């Protein structure tokens, strides 16, 4: 593991003293850029991994197919982002996915929460989707052309995911007493983790014009979410936020077990091709 490569701070060890200052700045930018790509890539990968757990477990066969499609979109996003990060870090997508420990991941806690019931899946897809919708829309104009390209593809996919989640949120929220209760419970469970998505972070200041300040996404994303919740006759929870820390190497308790499953085979055969 080389965690310093993915550190949020610019490398400033003695080794770098001989490096000309402009190159040092480039390397700092590269490390920051890679770090930002891990934010986005890890969120997408961990979401896809959770959706993968749904296949063969959906409430109706048609929904198995639908969740599979969404998972495949997210996995595609993760691969584009991690490949890019990997090029900056001298590692490939699989080394990043399979040979980093949970503390080296940069995903938020919300995406790594346990699978839960179908209401949890719908709520998470809605909350993360509404955030991603704003995020990728903003990133389509990123000064980094490759990231802008990834965002341009992702935004079309994410809009559909939000539509899918919104449709279900309304059906379940305004369905039966049981489905309403389950949706409200799921919403209450997820809500404390929502704020972490929008926490400001010094990293995005370092990447001015390339990255997006997450705090600026909050209002439009919340607008979208509350409009759906209104139609679904659900109440915005008044719960306090929890601490978060996923972007800074303080992952949720659930990430480790998830990665243990995801990585078990790859780590049993280090250096093998598949």
């Amino acid at each position, binding site marked *: 593991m080389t965690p310093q490569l993915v550190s949020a701070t610019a490398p400033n060890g003695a080794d770098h003293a001989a490096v000309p200052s402009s190159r040092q700045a480039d390397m700092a930018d590269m490390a920051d850029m890679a770090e930002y790509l891990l934010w986005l890539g890890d969120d997408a990968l961990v979401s896809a991994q959770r959706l993968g757990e749904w296949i063969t477990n959906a409430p*109706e066969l*048609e929904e198995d197919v639908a969740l599979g499609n969404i998972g495949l979109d997210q996995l595609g996003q993760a691969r584009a982002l991690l490949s890019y990060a990997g090029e900056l870090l001298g590692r490939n997508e699989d080394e990043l996915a399979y040979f980093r420990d949970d503390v080296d991941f940069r995903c938020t806690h919300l995406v790594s929460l346990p699978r839960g019931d179908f209401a949890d899946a719908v709520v998470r897809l809605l909350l993360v989707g509404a955030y991603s919708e704003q995020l990728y829309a903003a990133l389509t104009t990123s000064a980094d052309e490759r990231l802008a390209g990834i965002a341009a593809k992702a935004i079309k996919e994410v809009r559909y995911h939000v539509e899918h989640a919104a449709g279900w949120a309304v*059906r379940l929220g305004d369905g039966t007493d049981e489905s309403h209760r389950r949706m409200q419970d799921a919403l209450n469970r997820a809500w404390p983790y929502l704020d972490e998505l929008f926490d400001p972070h010094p990293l995005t200041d370092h990447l001015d014009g390339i990255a997006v300040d997450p705090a600026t996404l909050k209002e439009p994303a919340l607008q979208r979410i509350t409009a759906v919740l209104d139609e679904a006759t659900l109440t915005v929870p008044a719960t306090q936020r929890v601490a978060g820390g996923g972007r800074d190497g303080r992952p949720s308790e659930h990430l480790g077990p998830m990665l243990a499953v995801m990585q078990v085979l790859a780590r049993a055969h280090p250096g093998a091709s598949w």
Partner: protein
Amino acid sequence: MSGSPTAEWPLWEVFVRPGRGLSHVHAGSLHAADAEMALGNARDLYTRRGEGVSIWVVASTDIHASSPDEKDSLFDPAADKPYRHPTFYTASEGVPNL
């Protein structure tokens, strides 16, 4: 236990337009609780490989079909009108552009 069977989601017929300039063609059916879900399911089920540019879904109960019992009276009368087909006219054989 598998529980008492709940009311099944209704059946929808799916029609997909494979490309611009072509008609929608019947692709199959699926179950969905409402039209919006039927469209989404149709998209996921019948266009996973880019098979379509447009989808129609129609509740199966809204399709009115001719009955096989009426087949003779509906379709046989058309069979004895060969003069509707260009091949009926032989006098123009060999004459250009006709």
